[in-house]
C-alpha cells in the first residue's frame, strides 16, 4: 500500500469517527448548558454547568428519572436473560439436531422480527389491563421477548453452528451422559456466543419506545425512553431541553461502555451468518 493510499484511508477513518461521534458530542455539550444558555446558538455551552445532571439525579426530576433507570435496567436484563435461556435450547436444537419444523421455527423468528410493534401494542394493552399486567414489569418483559427472541435464536444458532460438536461425541464415548457432555464440553464453547447474543438482545430491549409509552403509566414500570418525554421546566410551559439532554447522556453511557469493551464480539454477532456463509 502506497503512503498516499495509506493517508487516504486514515483520513476516511477519521471522517467516519467524526460522523459517528458528532451527534453524541452535541447532546453531551447540550447537557452542560444552563436553561438560559440553551438558546445561545452555539455548539458549546457559554458556561459549563452540572445543573441538569443534579436536576435529574438529585433534584426535582430525580423521582421521575431514577425509577425509570431502575425499571429500564431491571426489565431489559430480565427480558435478555429469559430470551437467552429460551433461545439457547432452541438454537442448540437447530444447530445440532435433525428434526422436522426447524425451518418453521426459523421462519417464525424471521416473521416476528419484521413484525410492526405498533400492530400488537393495542391488543396487548387491552389484555394487560384485563389480567392486571398493565404498568408492571412482567407487562413489559413479555412483549420485549418479541424483540429479543428472534434475534437471539438467529444469532445463537449461527454461533452454535461453529462449535466443534465432535468433542461432545468424544466425551460421550468417554462415558459421559449426553447432559454431562453438553454441560461440561459444549457450554464453555457456547458461552461466548451466548454472551454476544445477550449484548445484542439487551441493546434491542434498551432501545424500545413504543411498548414503553403504551403499556406503562407510572414510575412502577416506565422505562427511560418513555420517561424522557416527561421532564418539565420550571412550569409546565417551559421546555426541559437541558434535563432531557442530561438524561439522554446518562442512558447512553451503558451502551457506550458495552460497545467499547465488546466491539469485536458485537460485530461478529451482527454479521455472523453472512461472514461464514
Amino acid at each position: 500500500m502506497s503512503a498516499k493510499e495509506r493517508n487516504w484511508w486514515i483520513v476516511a477513518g477519521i471522517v467516519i469517527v467524526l460522523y459517528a461521534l458528532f451527534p453524541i458530542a452535541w447532546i453531551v455539550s447540550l447537557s452542560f448548558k444552563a436553561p438560559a444558555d440553551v438558546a445561545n446558538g452555539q455548539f458549546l455551552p457559554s458556561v459549563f454547568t452540572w445543573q441538569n445532571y443534579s436536576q435529574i439525579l438529585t433534584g426535582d426530576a430525580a423521582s421521575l428519572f431514577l425509577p425509570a433507570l431502575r425499571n429500564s435496567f431491571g426489565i431489559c436484563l430480565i427480558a435478555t436473560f429469559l430470551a437467552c435461556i429460551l433461545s439457547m435450547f432452541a438454537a442448540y436444537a437447530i444447530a445440532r439436531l435433525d428434526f422436522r419444523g426447524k425451518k418453521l421455527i426459523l421462519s417464525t423468528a424471521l416473521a416476528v422480527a419484521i413484525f410492526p410493534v405498533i400492530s400488537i401494542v393495542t391488543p396487548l394493552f387491552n389484555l394487560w389491563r384485563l389480567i392486571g399486567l398493565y404498568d408492571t414489569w412482567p407487562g413489559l418483559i413479555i412483549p420485549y421477548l418479541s424483540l429479543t427472541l428472534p434475534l437471539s435464536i438467529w444469532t445463537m444458532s449461527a454461533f452454535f453452528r461453529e462449535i466443534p460438536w465432535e468433542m461432545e461425541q468424544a466425551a460421550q464415548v468417554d462415558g459421559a451422559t449426553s447432559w454431562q457432555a453438553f454441560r461440561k464440553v459444549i457450554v464453555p464453547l457456547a458461552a461466548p456466543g451466548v454472551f454476544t447474543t445477550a449484548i445484542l438482545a439487551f441493546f434491542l430491549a434498551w432501545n424500545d419506545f413504543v411498548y414503553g409509552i403504551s403499556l406503562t403509566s407510572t414510575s412502577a414500570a416506565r422505562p427511560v425512553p418513555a420517561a424522557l418525554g416527561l421532564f418539565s421546566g420550571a412550569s409546565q410551559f417551559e421546555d426541559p431541553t437541558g434535563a432531557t439532554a442530561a438524561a439522554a447522556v446518562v442512558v447512553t453511557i451503558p451502551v457506550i461502555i458495552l460497545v467499547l469493551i465488546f466491539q469485536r464480539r458485537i460485530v461478529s454477532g451482527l454479521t455472523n451468518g453472512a461472514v461464514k456463509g
Partner: protein
Amino acid sequence: MRRPWRSRLAAAALAVVAMGGLAACGSGAAGPPVLTWYINPDDGGQATIAQKCTQAAGGRYTIATSTLPRESSEQRQQLVRRLAANDSSIDIMSLDPPYIPEYAQAGFLAPIPPDVAARVTQGTVQSAIDGATWDGKLVTVPFWANTQLLWYKKSAAAAAGIDMSQPVTWDQLIQAAGKANTNIAAQGRRAESLTVWFNALIASAGGAVIAQNSTDPTQIKLGLDTPQGDRAAEVMSTFANSGREGAAFSTAGEDESVAAFEAGTAGWMVNWPFVWSKAKSGVEGGTLQQSVVDDYGWTLYPRVDADKPAAPPYGGINLGVGAFSAHPDLAYEATECITSTQNQKEYFLTNGNPASRSSVFSDPEVLADFPMAPTIEQSLQLAAPRPQTPYYSEVSGSIQREYHPPGSVTPGVTGKNATELIDAVLSGRQLL
C-alpha cells in the same frame, strides 16, 4: 435431559409470576391509607402541598404524588387508560379542564359530596367553577385557574405610539408592531395551544366552537362555519401572514414565545402568567437583565373587534377523585386541604400558577410578587372555556389539523372543512 430443562423453564416462569406478585402488592403495606395524587409537571409545588396536607391529616391518610406527562393530551391518555382498567390506585387527579366532561361522562369521577361542593366553590371565580362543571353538576374541585394576558414591552409600545391602557385589537397590535419594527409572539404550533388561541379568537368574535352541545356525538352542532368562525379565521390568517408573527411561528409554543419576548425580538406576546415567574428567576440566575423585566407591561388579551370585549383563554387545573378509589371520602377531604386558600396562595407565589379563589388576588404578599394579579383576576372573569364535550380531544385534534399551519387558514373555507372533518370523525367516518 428433560428434567433440568423443565426445572429451568419452571424457574423462569416462577420468576415472572413472582415479579407480577411483587408489583401488585407493593402498596399493600400497613399504616394509614396512601392516596395517590397524579399531578401535572410543575416546579415542585404540588409535591410540597402533598407533604403539607399529609402532615395536616394527622395520620389519617398520606398523599403520594405521581407525575404525568407534560402535554395535557398525553396526561389524559395516561389517566384514561388506567381508569378504563378500573384502576383503584387513582385517588386524586390534576385535570386539565377541557377533558373533564369526558371523565364525567364515562363515569370515571367519584361524585362530590354536596357539602364539599358548597365549600370548594365559595369565593371561587366563575370561570373556574364553569370549568369544573359538566351537565349542570360540579364534578371536580377547582384548584388553580389560568388565563392568558397580553404582555408588552413598554419601550415597544412607546416606539409605536400606542396607548396600552386602552383595549387593543389584533389588527392594531399588528400595526403597532410594524411601527416599532418588532414581532408579536403567539403560539402557532400544532398542539393544544393552537386550540387555545383559536377558541379565544372565536369567543372574542362572539361565537363558539360548539354552537349546540350534546352527549350524543352525532347531535353536536358546530359553530365554526359561521360569520364569527370566519372572523376568527380571518384574524388568525391576517396575523400569521402579517410578517409580524416572528420566525418559526408555526412551531412556536409557549416557551418559544417567552424566549422571543425575553430576547427582545418580540415586543408583544400573548401568554400565561408563568412568564413573570420565569423572568424573575432569570434575573436571579443572572441570565436576564433587570432592565428587561422592568420594561414588561401587561393588560387584557387583545380584542377581535374593537366594540366587543375579549374572551381570553381559560386554563388551569381542577382536582378529580377517581371513581374506583378505595377511599373517595378521604380523597375529597384531601382535595379540600390541597385547595385551601393558603395553599392556593403559596402555589401562586412559588410556582406562578394563579389561584381560583378571588381573595388570593388581593392578598398583599401576592400583589407584591405579582403586580399583575388584579389583571389576571379581571381576565379570569372574562375568560371563555374551551368547548365542553366528552369528545374534546377529537374536536381539538381536528381544529389543530385544519387550522395548522395558521398561515394557510382561509376564512370561509377552513371553517367549513373543519366542520366536515369533526362531523366525520365524531360519527366514525374518518380518521384523525
